[in-house]
């Protein structure tokens, strides 16, 4: 299988504290890959480095054999990597429709257009409505994001990530803060949305991980403990000791 994303020997120091100490990771085209690990093991840092929020102290990241290490976030995003955030990160005062439309504008590369009115653009409007429909957000399209329920905000977060039609979807704890019923709904939705696509996710909820992931990477305080299928991970002695056993 072809690797869509390759991280090679990543190191990250935060003023002397080593958060990642030589992490290598491959994500194959078409798989759902989850990164798990205890709190503070560096999962989100790994995400932030891959997507360009931080620069790695050492190491390289390749996206389809292109070295993207140290690129700024907007360039990485334009290549086709789209991410969501653990803490809701949407445009609070904009309506749901305006939120998604802003993402669609960027996807259609109309970002620098200053000569036509957004509201008059049919292509943008159609695509926006399609995404809203896909995420079942049509009924709240005119509600400002800040006034949505938490569960709906999570779905909007997902909508912003998906509306760029990314080649690699990266979800950072997409079920954080949801109750068990909402979580089940979210898992179903994520499964639908990522069907046939490539997903890299960080997740705390083991049920979600073993439900969704084709392969799992276990991170423990800056190093990779194991990578494998859910069954392999479940039966891995080291992982059990470090992480799963404690639950």
């Amino acid at each position: 299988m072809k690797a869509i994303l390759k991280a090679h020997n990543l190191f990250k120091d935060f003023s002397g504290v080593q958060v990642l100490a030589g992490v290598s990771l491959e994500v194959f085209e078409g798989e759902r890959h989850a990164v798990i690990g205890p709190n503070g093991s560096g999962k989100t840092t790994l995400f932030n480095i891959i997507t360009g929020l931080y620069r790695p102290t050492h190491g390289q990241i390749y996206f389809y054999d292109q070295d993207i290490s140290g690129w700024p976030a907007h360039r990485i995003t334009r290549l086709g990597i789209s991410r969501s955030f653990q803490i809701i990160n949407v445009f609070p005062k904009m309506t749901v429709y305006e939120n998604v439309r802003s993402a669609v504008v960027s996807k259609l590369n109309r970002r620098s257009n200053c000569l036509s009115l957004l509201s008059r653009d049919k292509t943008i409007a159609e695509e926006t409505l399609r995404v809203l429909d896909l995420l079942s957000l049509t009924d709240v399209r005119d509600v400002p994001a800040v006034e949505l329920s938490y569960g709906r905000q999570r779905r909007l977060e997902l909508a912003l990530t998906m509306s760029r039609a990314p080649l690699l979807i990266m979800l950072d704890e997409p079920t954080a803060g949801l109750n068990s019923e909402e979580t089940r709904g979210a898992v179903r939705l994520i499964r639908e949305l990522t069907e046939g696509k490539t997903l890299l996710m960080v997740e705390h909820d083991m049920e979600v991980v073993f439900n969704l992931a084709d392969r799992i990477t276990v991170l423990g305080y800056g190093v990779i403990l194991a990578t494998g299928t859910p069954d392999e991970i479940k039966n891995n002695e080291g992982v059990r000791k470090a992480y799963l056993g404690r639950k």
Partner: protein
Amino acid sequence: MKRLPVRPIAWVLFAAFLVLLPYLFREIRVHIAIEVLIYALFAVSFNLLFGYTGLLPFGHAGFFGVGAYGAALIISHFPGMPLLATLLISTVAGFVAAIVIGAVCVRLSGAYFALISLSFQMFLFAIAYEWRSVTNGDDGMSIARPDLYLPFLGKISLQNFSNLYYLTIILVALGILGCYLFLKTPLGNAIICVREKDVRASFLGYNVFRVKLTAFAAAGLMAGLAGGLYAIYQEVVATTCIDNNMSMIPVLMVVIGGSSYFLGPVLGAAFYVVFQDWFSSMTGYWMIVMGGIFIVIILYAQGGLVSLFAPEKGWRWRKEHESDIEGA
């Protein structure tokens, strides 16, 4: 029963009032109206940064001054230049200055952005003050207001105050309309995205630096036009139009008028200029009263005066800001 379309009627009446204004008031009042218009454009350009990009510049007079000095220098050195070309050049001068200065400023945010924009304005002020051979220092440059030549209409004298009023209102209206439409384009929308959540914007593919620089340049462009109009209206350009005081004027106007509504700065400019005129005729202490109004609005009505007319909007603005603070 059908409800009366109150808002359109109000706008039509207001537009008619603006058109007929030179016939309704004495000359001195029309002068005040011209001043309101120029400051309104200046305040709207400031609010592109403050209200729409979420940046608070303390040195916006730099671009106003560049526009004003640009117009004054052209008029005194190239007297044959058509008036509209002069204004176009001062607009472009504001734009170019904003791109150069903005390329440094927008790398910073918050208090540091405010301070570095202030430093650049003080630097420009120092040039205007010290380079006497060109700018005549703090004595300022006196210029004769040129006549306007238009195709078909021929020469239009701007010594006639109502002609000057109509020229100003047309250009200011075009400038403000330009800002309004700009914010409705994809690029204008990107500016709002950056204000709302710059991290999210960059993870949607927006280059946050470029977007902020665009906003800065657009604000400089409109401030340059306002400065050019100011030079032509005042017939004298001195360091007062590029000093710290001038930088604070749009801050006051926008906060008093309300930054969360597009026309808030226009209301703020009208209030500021009219109030200053009215109150300073009674007492020299008008600035104290203006300061008091500023404090009351900052403390109790952060939506500004416009929130009194559109209370729902002002309420929403405050509510969201409160939730921002709770969320932090």
